[in-house]
C-alpha cells in the first residue's frame, strides 16, 4: 500500500523544457529535414504568438509570447511550425508511461512535465541523486532537454525543477529551498503574481512571514494553499495516470532481451516471485499485465485475464504463451527490452488449493482451458449463455465471457421453471443473429400460416405447421417494443424445419404492412 503521508513522500518533478520543439526536431532528423532555428506558434486571440522556441532560436533572442510576424521580421530564416497540442500530449503520455520503470506512481503534469512519486524506490537505483541522474541521462539520450529535482512535496520539487533549485532537497528543507525562488514557482496564475509584484513581493521568502489572514482576504485561498502544500504543511496527493497494481514484480536486464523464450522465462521467474507475495496475503491474480520496456523508450503492455484466482507460475506463463502467439508481430522487440514488469492488476482472495476432490480438479482444468482460449482468441470470443428475463426470443439469451462467469448463476433454472409454467412452445436449436426477411410468401388467409415461401433464393413448400405463438412487443421499452409477432414452426417438403414469424397484424395494416421473417432453424 502506498502511503501518501507527506513526511515520507518523495517526489521527483521532471520538466521537459522544450517538448514541442524537441518532438519536431526529432521527426525532422528522421526525415533528414533542415535544422534551423525552430519556433512553434499558436493562435492567441487573433494573433499568432510563439509558444515554444528551440535552443538556437533562444540564442537569437526569441522568447515565448513574441508575435510570429515580429519574429519573422527579426530573423527571416526562421522555421515556424504550427502548434499540435494533441501530439505533445501523446508524447508526454508515452514518456510518462516509460517513467513507470522507476515507480508505478506517475502523473503527467499538464503540458510539459511529469511527476514521479519515488517514495521507497530510490534505493533500487543507488540513491535519489543516482536515480535523478539516470533518468535525466536516459531522457536526454532520447533527444529531449530536461530538468529534474527531488523534494518531499510536489510543490517544492516542481519549483526546484522549473526554477533551478537544488537537485535534491532533503525532507524538511523546503523552506530554505523555496525562500529565494520567485513567486511564480508557487504555480500561481499570472494575475496573482503580477498583483503581488505591485506590492513589492517578489520572492517566496517575502511571503513566508506575512500574516496569513490579510493575504487570504486579498488574494484568495489558492495562494496560501499552494504555499502550504509546497512547504508540506498541507497534504497534496499525487493522482497517478494509471491505477497502481497491488502486486508488482520486475526484472531489469543489463543486456536487452529480444527472444520470445527469454521473455517467457522472465514471466515465469517474475510469476514465481509474485506467488510468494500472493500466497502470503491469500490472494490470486484475476488479471495480469506484462509491461516490456524497450531500450528506445517504447513500452509494450500485454494483458491476460483468468477465470479464477491464479498463482501458479507455469499457468501464468502458459497464458502469456497464448497472448504472444495471438499478438505475433505486434510485439516488436526492436533492439530489445531492458526491463520487464509483471503486475497483478486485479487480485481476488484465493482459497488454498483443494486436493483430491475430482469435481474441483475438473473445474480447475476447464478454467485453465477457458483462460488459454480467451488469451489467444479474445475474451469475448469464449462465452457462456446466460438466460435473460425477456420473452423476446433474441433477448432471452445473452452470451457473456466465460472467464467472468465461471461458477456464476446463469439463470437457466429460472428459465426451466418459466417454460413449464407457461408451457412455452418449442424453440429452435439455432437462432439467426438478425431475423432474415422472407420473400414471396403465400398464406391462405391473411393472418394464417405460410403455404410457400422463398428464402435465400430457394423455394420451400410447407407441409406441416405448428403455431401461431404470439409474442407481443414490450410496450414499456423502446428496444423491445416492436410490433407483435406471430411465430410458426414449419416443415417443408424436404424435411427442413424453420422458425419464422410475421411482424405485425393485418388488422393494423393501415399503420404498417406485416412482414415475414425467418428467425431460426431446427433439426
Amino acid at each position, binding site marked *: 500500500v502506498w502511503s501518501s503521508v507527506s513526511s515520507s513522500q518523495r517526489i521527483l518533478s521532471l520538466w521537459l523544457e522544450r517538448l514541442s520543439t524537441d518532438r519536431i526536431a526529432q521527426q525532422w532528423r528522421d526525415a533528414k529535414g533542415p535544422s534551423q532555428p525552430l519556433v512553434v506558434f499558436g493562435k492567441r486571440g487573433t494573433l499568432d504568438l510563439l509558444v515554444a522556441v528551440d535552443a538556437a532560436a533562444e540564442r537569437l533572442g526569441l522568447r515565448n509570447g513574441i508575435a510570429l510576424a515580429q519574429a519573422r521580421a527579426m530573423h527571416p530564416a526562421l522555421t515556424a511550425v504550427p502548434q499540435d497540442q494533441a501530439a505533445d500530449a501523446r508524447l508526454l503520455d508515452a514518456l510518462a508511461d516509460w517513467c513507470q520503470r522507476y515507480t508505478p506512481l506517475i502523473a503527467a503534469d499538464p503540458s510539459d512535465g511529469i511527476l514521479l512519486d519515488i517514495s521507497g524506490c530510490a534505493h533500487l537505483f543507488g540513491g535519489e541523486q543516482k536515480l535523478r541522474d539516470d533518468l535525466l541521462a536516459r531522457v536526454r539520450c532520447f533527444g529531449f532537454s530536461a530538468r529534474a529535482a527531488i523534494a518531499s512535496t510536489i510543490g517544492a520539487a516542481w519549483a526546484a525543477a522549473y526554477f533551478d533549485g537544488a537537485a535534491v532537497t532533503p525532507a524538511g528543507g523546503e523552506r530554505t529551498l523555496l525562500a529565494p525562488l520567485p513567486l511564480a514557482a508557487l504555480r500561481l496564475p499570472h494575475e496573482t503574481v503580477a498583483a503581488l509584484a505591485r506590492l513589492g513581493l517578489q520572492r517566496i521568502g517575502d511571503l513566508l512571514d506575512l500574516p496569513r489572514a490579510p493575504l487570504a482576504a486579498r488574494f484568495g485561498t489558492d495562494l496560501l494553499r499552494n504555499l502550504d502544500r509546497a512547504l508540506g504543511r498541507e497534504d497534496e496527493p499525487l493522482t497517478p495516470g494509471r491505477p497502481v497494481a497491488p502486486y508488482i514484480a520486475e526484472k531489469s536486464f543489463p543486456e536487452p532481451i529480444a527472444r520470445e523464450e527469454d521473455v517467457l522465462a522472465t514471466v515465469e521467474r517474475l510469476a514465481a516471485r509474485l506467488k510468494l507475495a500472493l500466497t502470503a496475503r491469500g490472494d490470486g491474480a484475476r488479471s495480469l499485465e506484462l509491461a516490456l520496456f524497450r531500450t528506445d523508450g517504447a513500452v509494450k503492455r500485454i494483458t491476460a485475464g483468468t477465470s479464477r484466482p491464479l498463482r501458479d507460475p507455469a499457468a501464468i506463463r502458459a497464458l502469456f504463451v497464448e497472448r504472444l502467439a495471438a499478438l505475433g508481430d505486434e510485439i516488436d522487440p526492436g533492439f530489445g527490452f531492458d526491463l520487464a514488469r509483471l503486475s497483478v492488476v486485479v487480485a481476488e482472495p484465493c482459497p488454498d488449493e483443494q486436493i483430491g476432490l475430482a*469435481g474441483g480438479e475438473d473445474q480447475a482444468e476447464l478454467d485453465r482451458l477457458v483462460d488459454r482460449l480467451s488469451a489467444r*482468441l479474445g475474451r469475448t470470443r469464449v462465452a457462456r449463455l446466460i438466460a435473460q428475463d425477456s420473452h423476446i426470443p433474441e433477448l432471452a439469451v445473452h452470451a457473456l465471457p466465460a472467464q467472468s462467469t465461471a461458477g456464476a448463476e446463469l439463470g437457466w433454472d429460472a428459465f426451466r421453471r418459466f417454460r413449464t409454467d407457461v408451457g412455452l412452445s418449442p424453440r429452435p436449436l439455432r437462432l439467426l443473429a438478425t431475423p432474415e426477411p422472407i420473400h414471396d410468401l403465400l398464406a391462405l388467409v391473411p393472418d394464417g400460416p405460410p403455404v410457400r415461401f422463398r428464402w435465400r433464393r430457394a423455394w420451400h413448400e410447407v407441409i406441416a405447421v405448428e403455431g401461431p405463438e404470439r409474442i407481443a412487443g414490450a410496450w414499456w421499452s423502446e428496444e423491445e417494443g416492436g410490433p407483435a409477432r406471430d411465430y410458426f414452426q414449419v416443415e417443408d417438403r424436404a424435411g427442413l424445419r424453420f422458425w419464422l414469424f410475421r411482424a405485425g397484424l393485418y388488422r393494423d395494416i393501415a399503420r404498417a404492412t406485416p412482414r415475414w421473417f425467418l428467425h431460426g432453424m431446427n433439426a
Partner: protein
Amino acid sequence: MLPMAFTTPCTATARAAFLPTEPSAARIERLRQKLFSVERATGLTAECGLPLELGIAAIDAALGGGLGCGALHEIAAERETQSPAATGFALAVTARAARKSLRFLDREAFCRPFCRLGGNASAHAGGRNSPGRRAVLWIAEDLSLCENGAPYGPGLDAAGIAPEELITVTATRARDVLWAMEEALRCRAVGVVIGEIRARGINAVATRRLSLAAAAGGTLGLLLRTAPDDAPCAFATRWIIGAAPSSLLATAERRHGIGPPRLAVRLVRNRRGHLGAWIVEWSSVEQRFELATHSELMAGAAIDRPHRAAVA
C-alpha cells in the same frame, strides 16, 4: 513404436488364430481385438469406458457397440441447406453423451458412498457444476454462425443439452477453430467438442492431430461440416446427414403439428465395421434415436422428393 506394436502381439496371436478348432465368429472377434490393440498403440484409439450407444441395434452393430468416445467423428450436411439437420444429429449425440456421463456418475455414487460426499463438497466449492458432468464446447467460425445461426440456449435445453455446460467459442479463421478444437479435445474436463467448419479441405495431418488429441483427452469430438468431403482423413467415422420429412403419409394436404425430427443418416466411413444408410427419428424427450421403417424411406424418396433424387 509402430513396428514394435505390430511384431510383439501379432506373432504371439497369429499362430493361435489359425488353430483349426476355433469357430469363425470367435476368430473374427479375436482378430478385431488384435486390430484394436494395434490401433491403441498408435495412439489413435483410447480406452475410455464404454462406447456411446446410439440406441438403434443396427447402427450400434455397425459401429461395433457405438461411437468411440476418445475419437473424432465427422458429421457433414448433405448440402449447405441441410446443415440444421447435421447440427441436430450432432446435438442429439452430444445429449446422449451428456446423459451417459450422468448415468455413469450415478453408478459411481451408488457403489461408493464416499464419492457422493466428495462430489457434494466440490459442488459447493465449484458453485454451479455438478461433478461428472463434463463441459460441452461448441467452436465455430464467425461466418458459419452468420449463415446458420448461433446456438440458442432455450432450444438446446429442450434438446437435452444443459446450457450451463455449454461454452461457445468463435474464431475468425478455420485454423483458429482447429487449434481451439485440439486444445479442448486434450482437456479432461471437456466431454464433447463440436467444431464447426465451412472450409472445404482439411488436411490429413490436421485430422490426425485432432484424433490424437481426442484419444489423449478421452473426449468425443464432432466435426460439423456444411458439405461432405471425401478427402483422406483420420476420423473414426464419417456421416452424411440430410433432413427427412417427419411423416410421409399425408403429403397431399398440409398438416397441423410437427412430429419429432427425422434425419436421413448415411455412414460413409467406419473404421470398425460396415457402412449403411438409415432414416432415424430423434425423440428429445426420451433422448434416444428410433429407426423409421425402411419401406417408408423407399417410397418417400422416390415419389416425394424429385429434386433430391436428381441431386443424388
